[in-house]
């Protein structure tokens, strides 16, 4: 391997020269250019979305001991469900375990930014609210955080979408999305003076 910069520049030059000597049909060249442009466009869109619109999948790398959730403050049983903090931000803490999501039913407001925090108490699960982008894998040992907004009020199921054992198809619970003006923050929330 050459180490000197001038030598490696020569190397690259000769590689390019060799490449240009290959026979490539002009139609093929044109097609490759079109393909490159299409791929470039798609890559450009997702990159711009990620950087400027914050369109990212759930990726907050945060660890937790799934074997002792009951001892953790955040995911202890009486701290689960919907909470609103002093600034009005809505956070929903949920535990996945064979075969349900806990709490089994929650009410959330429509047209409001929501932050879901999911953990598993046993094996790998996944959760999806059909026809929305509230989707994440729930990997034991990690907290899966998803931010989303539901535009339309209604009753939605929460379905487990990763094989987690023979009862996998029984793993689901419900979520009610309520019109913004009808929704009341749960009493437990710090916003209501508790905790």
């Amino acid at each position, binding site marked *: 391997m050459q180490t000197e910069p001038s030598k490696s520049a020569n190397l690259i030059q000769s590689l390019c020269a060799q490449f240009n000597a*290959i026979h490539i*049909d002009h139609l093929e060249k044109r097609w490759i250019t079109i393909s490159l442009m299409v791929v470039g466009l798609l890559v450009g869109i997702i990159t711009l979305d990620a950087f400027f619109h914050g369109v990212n*999948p759930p*990726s907050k790398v945060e*660890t937790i001991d799934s074997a002792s959730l009951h001892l953790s403050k955040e995911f202890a049983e009486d701290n689960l469900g919907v909470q609103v903090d002093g600034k009005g931000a809505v956070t929903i803490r949920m535990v996945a375990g064979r075969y349900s999501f806990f709490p089994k039913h929650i009410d959330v407001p429509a047209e409001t930014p929501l932050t879901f925090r999911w953990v598993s108490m046993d094996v*790998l699960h996944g959760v999806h609210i059909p026809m929305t982008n509230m*989707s994440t894998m729930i990997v034991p040992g990690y907290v899966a955080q998803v931010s989303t907004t539901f535009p339309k009020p209604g009753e939605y199921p929460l379905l487990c979408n990763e*094989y987690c*054992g023979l009862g*996998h198809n029984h793993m689901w619970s419900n979520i009610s999305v309520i019109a913004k003006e009808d929704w009341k923050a749960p009493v437990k929330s710090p916003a209501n003076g508790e905790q």
Partner: protein
Amino acid sequence: MIDATTRKLALSHLWVAFAAFIVACFMGEYQVLERSGFFPVLDSAPVYFASVSTHGVLMAFVLTTFFIMGFGYTIATTSLKQPVWNKPLAWGGFWLALVGVVLAAIPLLTGKASVLYTFYPPIVAHAAFYIGATLLVVGSWVWCAIMLVMFSQWKTANPGQAVPLPMFATAANAMLWLWTSAGVALEVLFQLIPLSLGWIDTVDPGLARTLFAWTLHPIVYFWLIPAYTAFYVFVPKQAGGYLFSDEMARIAFIVLAVFALPIGFHHLYMDPEQASGWKLLHGIGTFVVALPTLVTGFTVIASLEIAGRLRGGKGLFGWILTLPWTNTMVLSVILALLMLIFGGFGGIVNASYAMNAMIHNTAWVPGHFHLIFGGTTIIMYFAIAYYLWPLLTGKALFSNIMAVTQLWLWFIGMAILTTPWHVLGLLGQPRRISSVVYNNLLTLAWKPYEFMMIFGGLILLGSACLFIYNLVKTQLNPTSETVVAEEIEFAEPIHAVTTLPEYLNGLRLWNKVIAVLMAVSFGYPILQFFFMKTFGSSAWGY
């Protein structure tokens, strides 16, 4: 005529592959029946998941690996015109892989390894499952070694000459598979086998998923390369024309092998253990690897057009009609491309980073990969088998019309099976469920699609039976005059290859490029598990 050793070696591998395939097809039809809910007697989660686990392993690991090995031996000996290097070793690899399959099949069939073909911890199977899978992979490494040795021996013996294209593709696939299988090998050897034997108490499922994702993307290119090889080296000749460009074919294979590897995180888009920057990087790579497929599509269609015009086709589309539609290779490539076009659109949705959230782990996903893997890839495996069988057995194919019917049925069956499967995904149905018990109105909309899938599956099963029947009848035919003293025929390029830089004729440089790309894209994401405070999970049953 292909030499006797190669014929025996190839036929043994291919028969294991197709035996696995036909068994798995029966399971597939059982699965669509069971999950539809129309037959309450069938309803059983333990049987369903034992079946899906076995079906997945047989299709994704056994059919593919044995087919690729058998195909590789045939290509190497015929294109290089030299015998298999180290025959005892080749047979050793075959038996090792076969023993592995049997070892894994025992727990699979007895419900002791219902962990699906992705076997994500912390659910664990019986240790025999992991050990059997390891032997299968080690057997395939033997094949890789033989391919690479034959490749470099030929180059040493023929300095300055272009390695025949079919062998170039096969060697690239061997290199690809060695890199690909390393991820899952690390997972199985350091995490799953020790955990299943009780040598360690916990594993980190995040690390396990990261290592599995290393393998999960490039493995599909390992399966696909034989199909692409047939596109380039058999199709143009069978259609009566020439290969449009030999050089571009090499470039396509190289880009496939190199860029298939560092992009596995598109399987982890929805995972919490990797940060979004890494996911974006792999996401971009995922689009790059679409390029060789676009180039391949172009070259294949251009080669077909040349053939169609040489056969007298006129006008913009007239050449399509003059193609030999009853030639199994030509028909297969047309049907494969059609399925690839539809599958490709679906793939763009999957790959698109944020759109992925809508369909991740829904029924859309098995719908997508049945179309593109069970459809595009497997129909080319059929075509290759139809082409090779007379050459390997020395007997004429039992029935060409039956073969043509079989291919059409496979295409129609795939369309009927996978279209409703995609729709179910858009309607929110999760994948991998044995029955629908969600007490929700949404599920009423699923019923008609489940029903359609039963018919798609039946057509596919019928098609699969015709395929096996045709091969068996060919091979067992005692009276067939030995028509086939012919040689295997590889397509000629329109322009003979005149100059070929060493980097389009060898793999050394690309091996180094892969090492760098893998270090960049997987280095930190794997090392992070050793830097941060993580919590392992103990083993769970299912």
